[in-house]
């Protein structure tokens, strides 16, 4: 597969307040069943010198370079677009659940309503119109963005490590920007 540019999520974890607006904006745009979430927000209690603090991780599909979901899917329902976005064609999905157990980021799950897998396609229908995904425009704190990951990674504070998030063999495309220590 040829990947010309890698679009990924950019997250300023230091600014996330765990409000859940991104989750809901995504559910509404994607018309998801109420209990199905593409984007989840986890809270971590982290020990610091002078006590514990809360840190939130807002995460969805990482649009990996070596997508585990794609590799295990017998129905060939997954596809990587030219821009690196991993998309799922639900028409082809048989609901075997292999992708859901393969994804190291818990980004795929089986929907209760039709028994098929579903996950974040980075709102490509919005991206293709020059707009941003629903979670990005839906965060009132403005701490999620999308961008060309190769470019973003050149910034000194960029990394694939954050609280609750790390790199792995699937080569995820979410970058954490930590501009303030």
């Amino acid at each position, binding site marked *: 597969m040829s990947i010309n540019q*890698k*679009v990924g999520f950019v997250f300023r974890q230091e*600014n*996330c*307040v765990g*409000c*859940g*607006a991104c989750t*809901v*904006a995504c*559910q*509404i*745009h*994607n018309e998801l069943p*109420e209990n199905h979430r593409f984007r989840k927000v986890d809270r971590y209690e*982290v*020990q610091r010198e002078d*006590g514990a603090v*809360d*840190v*939130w*991780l807002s995460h969805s599909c990482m649009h990996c370079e070596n997508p585990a979901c794609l590799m295990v899917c017998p129905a060939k329902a997954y596809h990587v*677009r*030219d*821009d690196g976005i991993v*998309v799922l*064609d639900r028409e082809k999905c048989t609901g075997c659940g292999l992708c859901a157990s*393969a994804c*190291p980021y*818990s980004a795929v799950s089986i929907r209760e309503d039709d028994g098929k897998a579903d996950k974040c396609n980075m709102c*490509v*229908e919005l*991206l*293709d119109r020059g707009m*941003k995904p629903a979670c990005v425009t*839906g*965060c*009132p*704190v*403005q*701490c999620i*963005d*999308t*961008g*060309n990951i190769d*470019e*973003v990674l050149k910034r*000194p*504070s960029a*990394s694939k*490590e954050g*609280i*609750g998030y*790390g790199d*792995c063999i699937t080569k995820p495309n979410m970058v954490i*920007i*930590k*501009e*303030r*220590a």
Partner: protein
Amino acid sequence: MKINRRTFLQGVGASSVVGSLSGLVPGIATATERGGAPDKMLKREGKIVYHTCQRNCADRCLLKFTVQNGRMTYVEGASEMKKMGTSPCVKGHAYVQYTYAADRILHPMERAGAKGEGKWRRISWDEAYEKISSRLQQIIKEHGADSILPYSYSGHEGVIGKYGGPSRFFNAVGSRKLDRKVCVFAAYEGLKSVTGTYQGPDPYDNIYTNCYISWGQNETATNVHGIKFINQARDKGAKLLVVNPIRTPIASQADIWLQPKPSTDTHLATGIMKYLIENDLADTKFIEANTIGYQDLLKRVDEMSYDEIEKVTGVPREKMFKFAKVYGESELSVIRLGYGMQRNYNGARMSRAIAMMHAVAGQYGKIGNGFVYDNTQADDSLNYSKGRADHIHPNGDTVGHVNMTEIAKAIHPTNPTAYGKPIKPIKAVINYNGNFVSVAPDSNACRLGAMRDDLFLVVHDFLMTDTAELADIIVPSTTQFEFPDMGTDYNCYHMQTSEKVIEPLGESKDNWIFFKELAAHMGLDHHPEMRVDYEQILRDFLDTEEPAFRHNNITYEQIIKEKFVTVYDQRPYFGDGKYKTPSGKIEFYSEMMKEAGYHPVIDFGLPEDEMIPEEKSLPFRMLSPAIPQRANSSFYNVKYIRNFPAYFAKINTEDAKALGISNNDRVRLSNQRGEAFFVAQVSSQVGRGTVMAPKNNWRRMDPQGKASCTNNLTTDKLTDMGGCSAYHSTNVAIEKA
């Protein structure tokens, strides 16, 4: 293959600082449609209507709704407005689901069993009007019009929805007056005693500050759109300081977070003043030019020792000193005071101490400093008496008043009181824009009163609330989206439009049409004020001589055309050094406090001093603040929102251990007012001896099926000044359920 996310857990290391997020390359030039779902775009096509969120939230978002064939299909933030950006909050996103909720009440209903039994008979509007008007007329004849009490607050905060429509009716009737003082009023008094006002600078200017102090405020829940301005300041090097007994998200992100025991803020502010004074960080030049009573302050501060402060607040003094040093050395510092912290028996006195502290630091009068509490510049400029038609109330000046916080006392079956004095019984309550059984303190007592057989309860609402289920008659209201209105925010000085988005659903009628038609049925439409249209009500409110309006030449037409206008623009706030106190200066010594019976400089009284022994001896102080996914009692039924937990109790780790409570255990909180059941969230987010449970959750939606809610426990005693609610001065016991 599964990687446990916790294996990535790591401490927070140092990292360097570079530009901001905005320079990113979208990088989608060669994208193809594959994988897209173009049909999802359909709901974004259609007419755009501007409408202001009217929940009781300082942000008061200006939203853009897409409408197709009369149906609202999509909502986004009015990005042309700086405060908004592209996004509403988590709740605002779900407004389409809120409006088309499956459980909306869409036709009038009459009780068909005993009160609260849940049996209803559908009736027509004509029948509803006939029944309501004949019963009210009978009550007026037998007991007088002042036996009728309106109850409402923040269901719709629009100008017509809140006051313009309904108040005209109650004025025409000549009803009892409701003092809508559940919020803010204690701090109003406290702050007025220092600078003469509770208003402050424009939060847009927070981006210029060197130090943002969040004091008793959870921005995530009640001012989420302000956070981006704080972050812009921080990206330029500003410090973030937080004072809060609960570890809010902003507290977690702060440079320094102080966690005082609840309601000990007077002591803490005094400790900080003491440090500033002793370490040459008091701004003596500012103090000399702008204040009176500084010598009295020095003396008073001297009387309080660090030992005592440490003991009362529970804040280690080194940490407080660190905080005071960063604050005192900051060139520009802005304080954002929360609305919650002043809901305490000592609310006015605490607010006063914090505002005084800011004067010792010399932090008034420049762009990037100041004190932000309630920026009602736009709201206060409106002509309320004309908008509400106060002049038609037959005895408006002498009729009795009921404080909404004391509604349970006012409708008590045997001993009705208001402000501590016996009152003439109330025979009818008309509840609109509100849900007092969930929202008012002491919910069990509220229910007791509402269940009275001789109390006629009419509820105008679009959901079966805890209050509606006790009604005699329910009349269906529209949501705010089904009639035109305007709104003012209380953070950024805006007056905004609220265009009608859709036609009323079912048989619902909005806050003006219902009261206007009821007035006609009762023969009250001889008042021309009862026959006007929406536009006339708005024009009456805008018929104001307030300088903020007149100087800016603000007109009805302008607001309709431009969608939002900024009403007031004194910048920098207090830049002229003129304070609104009797002396014209910042008052460290206050006659106003003295007259209220408190120490004229700093009063160290605590809520415990005023609790009955039975409550005082209970081991936990319960705080019941807002959570981000609810606005008072709204959004409890809304798809995508209702699954966010709202029936939990945050308990400190050590306390939980001592009580044998683990995370997710069921717990029972109780005091002399009642009991309530929650799911335990064990965490150091709250300090020892403190428990936090979300406010205003509904009894009928209690997931444990026990019809319990936080307000079963809360106090309805009023604050020291301002007649405000004091929910947080509540003590409870905790046990495993």
